[in-house]
Every structure is written in structure tokens, then in C-alpha cells.
């Protein structure tokens, strides 16, 4: 593709964007002649250039559209929605053709006859209806403005020069210089009309004469310019005034410097027209001198500056080592220059955010038509600048949000009026600087988020249960829209609701270190707040050290730093083995950087290198709504670092967002706050705490379990694992009977003892729900006041050791502190020998067996340990496989090991293989405990070396297996019943 075509494409893209928004504007303010003029000129330029480049399809479409616009300008055609739609259709066709041209290098084949036909009919049909009396246009503004500003003059000169060439005999000789002449002429005319100092028009004319132009030639050119201007809509009076400028200078051929300056001005002028057109038709006054530069050149420049910054940092670092150096002064100068250079280069990458918005007015207009809604798009702060890389990443998310607002948010006019609102809906889009960030707001005054639908959707998608939703604030529930696959659109319209959801938007924004928040009031509208960093290339970062290795932590995600003394460790606590920190009024989940990154312990003894060793630091960070703390050993300065991409070979590591070189020349990794956040919340505990903090983050933890929540007696809600409950019944207790001091109920041809929550025989009064526990012929009913809900929740016993018997501990279920009931306690109360039936004293009390229970779930530990103890075993507990191995090595005095299968780290299978490999433990009976127990699982367990295999929720089977193993000697391979 030749350079000319490339230039045309780039220029046309810009013009088309301008046209898009100006046409929509015109539709709203049909009377604005300046706007019509501008639109006409742009279309004219496109037509002219296409003709010049030999692009017939483009030319004919543009020509037809130009005709229609010409009628509009002449007042012969009223601006209506139909007119604008048709011109926009032409614009779309032009865009298509340009796109094809860009990829293919030539115009695609095809016919535009239909489109051109309707444009023609519009132009002719309306004009045939009678030329409406041309409204007397007030002569507003200066002659310069009426002539159409710089772009108008450019167009006129272009037309004139082309016409001149067409009738000149020396066409071939003149042609090469004609473009130069055209530009010089236009520039000179513009200067003359504005009465500004600059290129003298006389110089241009003198130069022409010097080049052998005759007076006649110049006359012809002059009259062509006049013709061109009148064609562009200037009345004859103005044309005469304009031409007078030419004549006047001609009559006064002052010997002046040759036209060289005019030619020198040219390159800077050349790219001006499209830009000027974009700047509201009066750009002439403060016209910026712009230059089109290849983006790769800018990128290269940026890279070089980055290197320079690094070198500067290194030099300064070295300099600090020398008290007094002759390099001091020049280096400080270098420092200053580098900083300024860095800022300037950063500026070249800055673009107004409006560039990402340019397509939105058109989008909203088309949506409004398609959906029969009246929508105003109000944009403020479009000139707020940000790095082009970031601009690119927010373009799509912004478009998506505006589209959502127009599609789902704004109601139809009828609905709005019915709701007591104005018939016009408004979407506000605004941007502003705030600190080192840009804050973008997208808000609408539409119907807001329908809470009922969100709830319904959350429930059907299984993202949360009813009780969990009840415990959430409205805003927390609203955040569900950011979850994958979440769309509240009832129908898939052609516009949105195609399943590309807000989760993608959030991902894109978080990827560039931004955050997005959402608020909505049903009936009054919704509002997105997006906060994004200004630039990605050079960021301020906090340098931290952990186990002797340094890392950079982007400053914008750091909320605060907390120093914790190792000796007192005040505020540092553990919940279920996970560290948390009490920061003011909130509990902060912590994670150690050395654990996240799996850093090898450094051999350095704490205290060896100075004061910082007796304390540790917590870097409090925020990603979205999740606030967490990262434990590091040391914290250094903040430094401006240049972000370089991570090598492809290591890009799969989520914890790093880049690499950089520090002032001292060493390479360090830049931590990715998003990656750290997911590493932090990967642990089940933090997930639970994070849920409260993040609002709506439901734990998908490993140990999620169905819990039956009920109320009984005084106090808060209580819960029992649903899997232990056989049935739920409701019975009239007045029908219960008393036998042997127990309350019993006739139930399924048997007698079921009934207990109340205190373990006493239930009172025989009123109708109550009963939780029925069944085991073979035995039954037990636990009488409760009401059954609240069934909730899937990760179970984390927080307060083990109970206030009263029958309670294992407490856990947070659906946001409320809930007591977990010890089923075994009640079962024993109801039937003394429930668990003793088959144990039958296999061993004497003085001959207690030592059992090692390996179980990572606190719930099962707390469920099984008292049960085993009650059954007469001495129980030692290990929380994971690694601990179990340690314990076995330490004191090899266990008789039986009972181990869970699914555990983090060493699984039950791994554990049994390891233990079997050890000679001293080769014969040790090991019972597998698992929630899965089909034949294949059991076989697999036995193959791995387990002695027996029982299901977790069948305490009786476990006791039976233990008893069997203990009494019949060891290594007895037999399936559990």
C-alpha cells in the first residue's frame, strides 16, 4: 500500500469519527448552519480525495451523501431523523469500504446502487417539492469564519487548483507543484483573512510570477477561488471581499522575501484540516501545530527514555556512595533533564479519553431508535488525558457499560412518563483526574437494577442461598452482576444480553490496575465508578524484602503499612491456623509473601542485620473491595520503576505483573496485586473473612457442607450436618408417651425416644418439628422449635470447647454465629449403648489403644474426637498429612491411624503410601475416612494400603471398624459394612 493511500486512510478514519458525532449533534440542533457547513465540507473532502486516488465506489457514495447534505445546507431539505439515518447509512458504507481498503489494499467489488438511489431520491425528491425559501442567514462572525475557517479555505483552494489545472495547457508541467501551491495559498489566505502576521499572500503571488506564471494564469486562479468559495456557500459579497485580498496584494507588488517561508510552513500545516474540523469549525484561532507520528516511533522513544531513567537511577545510586564528587553538579543536571524528558515523552502517549468515547453518541442514537427510547448522552471531561495503552483497554468496557445503560437501564418514553420522569432518559459519562488516577463515571437515570430479578438469578444460578442473600446488604447483592454469566436481561436483544457480561468488564479494568464499583437504586438509575491509573509504563512502587529477596509492589494498590514487633506481636492472631490481624475495627486476612511465593528460608539469623529484624511488616493492600495484608520482612523506599513485561516463559505465574531493574542494577519482579489477592483468598479461611469484606464473595471452599439450621431453646441459631439427619417430621407431642422415664413417640412401628435441646426427655406439649436420626432399628428424635433453612457453607469451627454439652463449637453460617450441635452427644443420651453395641469391650480400660486421627476439617475433628474418646480410645489429632508423618516419626506409639482422604498437601493416599514404605509402620492398621464410598473408591483405598475404608458420616461404621481392627489383630483386610 503506498504512502498516499495510508495517509488517506488515517485521515478518513478521523473524519468519519467526527462525522458520526456531528451528524448526531445535527439531528438534535437542526438549525446550526456552522454544523451543516462542517459536515458538508468533510464529506466533500472525502469525495474529492477518493476521486483523486481513483476509488470510484467510495467517491460515488460520498458524492450522493454530499448532494443530500448540500440540499440541507441550502435550506432545501429539512433535517429529520430519516435524513440523518440515511446519511449515517452512507457513512457506514464508507466505513465498510475503507475497512476493506485497509485490509485488502483495494476497493472491494459490489454495488451501492440501492443506497445511492435512495440518497438521490432524497436529494431530488425533496428539492422537487419546491425549494424552500432560503432563510436569510445572519452574517455572523468574521469573513474568516463565514469562509469556513481553515478547513473551508483549504477546501476552496483545493477545488480552485483542480479546476485551474483542468483548463491549463501546461497541465503536465504544473501538476507536480500544484499541491504545494494549493497549500501555500490556503495558508496565506487564512492568515490574510484573520489579519494575523504570518505568510504574506503577496509573497505567494510573487513567487508564482518568478516561476513563470502569467498574469492571466493568476487571474484564472483567482476567479476559480472565487467560484470555489461561492460553491461552498459564501455569498457574492463575501466572495468579492475575499478576492479583494488577492487583488489588493497584487496591486502592490512590494518586493519582498521570496516564498520560501511559505514552503517551510507547509509540512506543519498539512495535517491540520481534519483536526481543525474536529475542533468545532473555529479552530483557526488557537490552531495547534500537530504532526502525525508513527506509533512505533513513540513506543521506541518510550523504551529509550525508560532505559535513560534506569541509567540515571543507577548513576544516582553510585553517587550516594561518594560524599563529594565532581560529577555531582552535572549528574543533578542530567537528573533534571531526564525527568523532564520522561514527562514530555509520557505526554506524547497521552490521549484525551474522548477518543474512546467518539463512537458512543452514534451508538446511543441507534440504540434509541431501535428500542424506541429517547436517550440523551451527556459527556463531560472528554479532554481528560490518559495513557493510550490504558485508553485502549477501557474502550470496550466503557462501550459495554453505555450500551447496557441504554438497553437495560433507560426505559421507553411511555414507561418513563408513567413513572413520573421526563420522557428523555439521560446517560452521563464523565471523566476527571483524581490524584494519580482517572475517575470515570457512567450513570443513567433509568430503572436501576431490579433487585428481585437479581435475587432470583442468584438463586437459580446457585451463586448463593436464600439465607445468604438475606444476610447481605442491597449493594452486596448488586455486585453479583460482576459474576460470570450473569445477565438480568430477560430477553437477548440484538444489543446486549449476549452473555458477554460485566465480569469481562471487571476483568479488563482490574487487569490494568483499576477498580470498578457499582451502585443502583431501583427506579432511579444506576452508576458505575471506575478508577484507573494514569499510566502503566512507569509506576511508583514500594520495594519490599522477604527471605532476602526483593520485590516491587505497585504503590497504587498499597493502602498502608503496619509494623509489627516480633516479640509482642500485638494484634496478630490465628484463626484455624491462618494468621489475621486486628486492624482498627476490622479483621484483616493475612498471607505471608514467603508462603505465597514459596520462598526458601534464608539462612540469615534474625537480628543479624540491624534493627528491622525484630519486627515484621504488613503491607495492607486493596484489590477491588478485598482488603488483605501481605507479611514481608522489610520495607524499603518507594521508587519510580519502569515496567517491563515478564518473559513469555514465565507469564503463567499469576503473582507477577512485570519485571524491572532497580537503581543498583539488580533485576526484581513486580508483584501483581490481583495475583496476590487470589493467592490470599485461595485459602478457605480468608475466603470466609473475605466474604464479609468483599460483599458477595461466596466461598467455594473445599469443605462446603449442607447444614440444617434450626432454633431451639433460647440463644442463637444452631445447626447440624444435614447428612446426619435422616428425616424431618412434625408431630403433636401431646401424643407422646412416657416409658422408663423417657419420652417416646410411636413412629413407624417402633418407639422413638424424644429429647429436647438440653438432652432431657422432651416435654409432651404442642406441635414441634423433630429431627430424626436413624441407625438400623434405633431411632432418636430431637425436638426443636423451628427449622430455619438448609445452607451450603464452609464449616469453620471458631469457638471449640463448648459452653454446654451437646455443642461442638460455633461457626459463622449465613453471617450469623451458629452453634454446631454434637449429634453424638444426643445419640448417647437417647440410647446409652448406641455406639457400644459392637465394641463389646474388645480391650480392657487399662489397655487403651492410641489412635492418630488425621483430619484437616475442624468439624470432623471435633465430631470424631469426643466420640472416639467416649468409646475408650486415646486420641491424638493431626491437622494434615505432613503433621501425621512427623507425629509418627516422633513417637511411634500409635496402634491405629484413622486418616481422611481429601486433604490439602499430602492426601490420604500419599500418607498411607509413605507410612507403608516405612518398615516400622508397615503393619500399622490404617483406616481411611472419606466422604466417597463407592466400590471403586474402596478398592482404590485398599490398593493404596489402607486396612479398612469407612465413610465419614457413619460414626458407627468407624467404631465397628476400629473395634474389629483392634480386637482381631492388625492388617485385617476386610470391607466395612
Amino acid at each position, binding site marked *: 500500500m503506498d504512502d498516499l493511500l495510508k495517509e488517506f486512510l488515517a485521515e478518513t478514519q478521523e473524519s468519519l469519527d467526527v462525522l458520526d458525532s456531528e451528524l448526531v449533534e445535527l439531528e438534535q440542533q437542526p438549525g446550526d448552519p456552522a454544523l451543516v457547513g462542517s459536515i458538508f465540507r468533510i464529506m466533500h473532502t472525502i469525495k474529492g480525495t477518493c476521486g483523486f486516488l481513483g476509488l470510484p465506489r467510495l467517491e460515488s457514495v460520498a458524492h450522493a451523501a454530499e448532494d443530500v447534505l448540500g440540499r440541507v445546507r441550502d435550506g432545501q431539505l429539512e433535517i429529520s431523523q430519516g435524513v440523518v439515518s440515511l446519511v449515517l447509512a452512507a457513512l457506514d458504507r464508507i466505513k465498510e469500504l475503507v475497512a476493506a481498503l485497509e485490509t485488502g489494499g483495494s476497493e472491494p467489488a459490489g454495488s451501492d446502487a440501492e443506497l445511492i438511489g435512495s440518497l438521490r431520491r432524497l436529494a431530488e425528491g425533496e428539492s422537487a417539492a419546491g425549494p424552500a425559501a432560503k432563510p436569510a442567514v445572519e452574517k455572523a462572525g468574521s469573513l474568516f469564519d463565514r469562509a469556513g475557517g481553515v478547513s473551508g479555505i483549504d477546501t476552496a483552494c483545493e477545488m480552485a487548483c483542480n479546476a485551474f489545472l483542468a483548463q491549463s495547457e501546461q497541465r503536465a508541467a504544473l501538476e507536480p507543484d500544484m499541491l504545494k501551491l494549493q497549500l501555500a495559498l490556503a495558508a496565506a489566505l487564512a492568515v490574510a483573512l484573520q489579519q494575523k502576521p504570518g505568510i504574506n499572500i503577496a509573497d505567494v503571488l510573487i513567487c508564482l510570477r518568478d516561476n513563470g506564471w502569467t498574469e492571466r494564469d493568476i487571474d484564472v486562479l483567482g476567479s476559480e477561488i472565487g467560484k470555489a468559495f461561492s460553491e461552498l456557500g459564501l455569498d457574492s459579497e463575501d466572495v468579492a471581499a475575499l478576492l479583494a485580498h488577492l487583488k489588493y496584494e497584487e496591486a502592490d507588488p512590494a518586493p519582498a522575501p521570496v516564498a520560501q517561508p511559505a514552503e517551510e510552513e507547509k509540512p506543519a500545516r498539512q495535517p491540520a484540516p481534519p483536526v481543525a474540523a474536529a475542533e468545532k469549525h473555529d479552530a483557526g484561532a488557537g490552531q495547534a501545530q500537530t504532526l502525525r507520528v508513527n506509533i512505533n516511533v513513540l513506543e521506541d522513544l518510550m523504551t529509550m527514555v525508560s532505559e535513560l531513567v534506569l*541509567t540515571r537511577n543507577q548513576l544516582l545510586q553510585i553517587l550516594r556512595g561518594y560524599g563529594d564528587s565532581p560529577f555531582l553538579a552535572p549528574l543533578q543536571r542530567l537528573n533534571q533533564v531526564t525527568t523532564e524528558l520522561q514527562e514530555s515523552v509520557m505526554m506524547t502517549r497521552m490521549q484525551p479519553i474522548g477518543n474512546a468515547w467518539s463512537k458512543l453518541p452514534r451508538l446511543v442514537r441507534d440504540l434509541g431508535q431501535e428500542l424506541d427510547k429517547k436517550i440523551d448522552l451527556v459527556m463531560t471531561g472528554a479532554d481528560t488525558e490518559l495513557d493510550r495503552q490504558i485508553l485502549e483497554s477501557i474502550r470496550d468496557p466503557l462501550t459495554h457499560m453505555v450500551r447496557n445503560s441504554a438497553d437495560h437501564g433507560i426505559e421507553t418514553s411511555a414507561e418513563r412518563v408513567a413513572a413520573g420522569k421526563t420522557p428523555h432518559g439521560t446517560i452521563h459519562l464523565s471523566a476527571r483526574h483524581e490524584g494519580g488516577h482517572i475517575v470515570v463515571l457512567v450513570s443513567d437515570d433509568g430503572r436501576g437494577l431490579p433487585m428481585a430479578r437479581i435475587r432470583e438469578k442468584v438463586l437459580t444460578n446457585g451463586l448463593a442461598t436464600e439465607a445468604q442473600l438475606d444476610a447481605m446488604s442491597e449493594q452486596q447483592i448488586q455486585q453479583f452482576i460482576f459474576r460470570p454469566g450473569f445477565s438480568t436481561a430477560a430477553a437477548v436483544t440484538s444489543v446486549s444480553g449476549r452473555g458477554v457480561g460485566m465480569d469481562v468488564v471487571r476483568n479488563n479494568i482490574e487487569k490494568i490496575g483499576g477498580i470498578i464499583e457499582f451502585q443502583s437504586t431501583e427506579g432511579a438509575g444506576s452508576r458505575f465508578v471506575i478508577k484507573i491509573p494514569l499510566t502503566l509504563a512507569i509506576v511508583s512502587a514500594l520495594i519490599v524484602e522477604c527471605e532476602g*529477596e526483593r520485590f516491587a509492589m505497585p504503590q497504587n494498590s498499597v493502602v498502608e503499612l503496619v509494623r509489627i514487633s516480633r516479640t509482642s506481636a500485638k494484634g496478630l492472631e490465628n484463626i484455624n491456623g491462618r494468621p489475621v490481624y486486628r486492624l482498627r475495627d476490622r479483621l484483616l486476612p493475612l498471607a505471608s509473601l514467603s508462603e505465597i*511465593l514459596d520462598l526458601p528460608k534464608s539462612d540469615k539469623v534474625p537480628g543479624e542485620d540491624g534493627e528491622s529484624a525484630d519486627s515484621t511488616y504488613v503491607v495492607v493492600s486493596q484489590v477491588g473491595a478485598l482488603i488483605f495484608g501481605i507479611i514481608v520482612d522489610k520495607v524499603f523506599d518507594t521508587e519510580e520503576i519502569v515496567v517491563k513485561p515478564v*518473559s513469555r*516463559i*514465565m507469564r503463567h*505465574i499469576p503473582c*507477577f505483573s512485570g519485571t524491572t531493574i532497580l537503581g543498583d542494577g*539488580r*533485576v526484581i519482579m513486580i508483584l501483581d496485586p490481583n495475583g496476590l489477592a487470589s493467592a490470599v483468598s485461595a485459602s478457605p479461611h480468608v475466603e470466609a473473612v473475605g466474604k464479609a469484606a468483599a460483599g458477595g464473595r461466596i466461598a467455594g471452599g473445599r469443605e462446603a457442607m449442607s447444614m440444617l439450621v434450626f432454633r431451639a431453646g433460647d440463644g442463637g441459631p444452631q445447626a447440624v450436618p444435614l447428612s446426619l439427619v435422616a428425616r424431618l417430621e412434625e408431630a403433636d407431642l401431646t401424643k407422646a408417651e412416657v416409658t422408663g422415664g423417657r419420652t417416646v413417640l410411636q413412629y413407624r412401628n417402633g418407639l422413638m425416644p424424644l429429647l429436647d435441646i438440653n438432652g432431657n426427655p422432651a416435654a409432651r406439649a404442642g406441635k414441634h418439628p423433630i429431627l430424626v436420626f436413624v441407625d438400623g432399628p434405633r431411632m432418636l428424635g430431637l425436638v426443636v422449635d423451628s427449622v430455619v433453612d438448609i445452607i451450603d457453607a464452609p464449616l469453620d469451627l471458631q469457638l471449640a470447647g463448648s459452653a454446654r454439652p451437646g455443642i461442638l463449637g460455633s461457626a459463622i453460617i449465613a453471617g450469623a454465629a451458629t452453634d454446631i450441635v454434637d449429634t453424638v452427644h444426643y445419640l448417647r443420651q437417647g440410647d446409652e449403648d448406641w455406639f457400644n453395641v459392637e465394641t463389646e469391650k474388645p480391650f480392657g480400660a487399662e489397655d487403651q489403644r492410641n489412635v492418630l486421627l488425621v483430619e484437616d476439617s475442624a468439624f470432623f475433628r471435633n465430631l470424631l474426637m469426643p466420640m472416639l474418646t467416649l468409646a475408650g480410645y486415646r486420641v491424638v489429632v493431626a491437622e494434615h498429612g505432613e503433621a501425621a508423618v512427623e507425629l509418627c516419626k516422633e513417637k511411634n506409639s500409635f496402634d491405629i491411624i484413622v486418616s481422611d482422604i481429601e486433604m490439602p498437601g499430602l492426601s490420604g493416599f500419599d500418607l498411607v503410601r509413605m507410612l507403608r514404605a516405612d518398615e516400622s509402620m508397615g503393619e500399622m492398621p490404617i483406616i481411611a475416612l472419606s466422604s466417597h464410598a463407592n466400590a471403586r473408591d474402596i478398592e482404590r483405598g485398599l490398593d493404596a494400603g489402607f486396612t479398612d475404608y469407612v465413610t465419614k458420616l457413619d460414626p458407627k461404621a468407624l467404631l465397628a471398624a476400629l473395634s474389629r481392627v483392634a480386637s482381631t489383630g492388625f492388617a485385617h483386610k476386610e470391607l466395612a459394612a
Partner: protein
Amino acid sequence: MRNEGQLRDDTVPGAIAGAESTSEDYVTMGIGGQTFGIPVLNVRDVLGPQNITRVPLAPEEIAGSLNLRGRIVTAVNMRKRLGLPSENFVATAMAVVVEHEDEPFSLLVDEVGEVLSLQSARREAVPATLDARWRDVTQGIYRLDDRLLIVLGVADVLRTIRTDSI
């Protein structure tokens, strides 16, 4: 087998291979006592022991990153890559800098030797019996006077690390 004697005569260290246009120059390097070669045109730089920053969680063959005049270069521990013992290797290793898909990498090796000019026609196929780890990265073998030279495929070295890690 082809004419062995002839082959040996041709492989004079550093010699420009006469009129034959099909000769190629290799930078030789030693890894665990074995001689390897990389076409000289692929080599950007040869460095002495460098200060290398370890990258946590990276594949084990990746020794870390180093700073080469402002560029960040990923260092590959060739001993690890070939399954050889590599205790205290990184701190003393020589670094051969190569470019792969516009990204600089440095191969950490025991030593870097002379440049040999070898006749392409003399290159022999990879023996099928070679350990898979080695075979993956071997493009061919030359028989020198006193030893064998394995032509190392830089792209293969890096590609296989990538697939291992994902």
C-alpha cells in the same frame, strides 16, 4: 558409515571451510563434560558469571533474570535442563545470550570454547537411543577429532520448558 578420515580432516578448529559454501560456524560450549554447539549467528553475547535474580514459582530450569545493559534477560540453567547435577552452578556459570522470538535468553553453561567451522553435510542424525531430555534439544551431531559435538536447538530448549510449565 561414510569416510571417517576425510571428515576429521575437515574439522579444523576455526578454519574457514574452503570453497564449500555449506559450512557453518558454531560457538562451542561445555555442559557437564559434553561439548555443545550453537550456530554463531544466533549468539548475541557471551558473559562471565552474572548476578542472577531468582524468580519464585518459575519452572525449575529457569535460573532467574539478569540485567544485560538495561535489558532483562531470562537465564536458563542448562545443567538442570539436561538433567545434570547443578549445585552451586549458577554462581559460576558462563552465560551465552541468544535471541528467541524477539526475547533475549541466556543459556548458563560450564564453559565457552572456540568457534568451529563445520561442514553441514557431515552433520549426523540424532541417535534414537539418546535420553529423551537430550534428544528433544539435539538437532544433530558432529564427530570431532577427540569428541562429539551436539548441535543445540535453542528454540527446542525454550519451547520444551514452556510446555513443561503449563
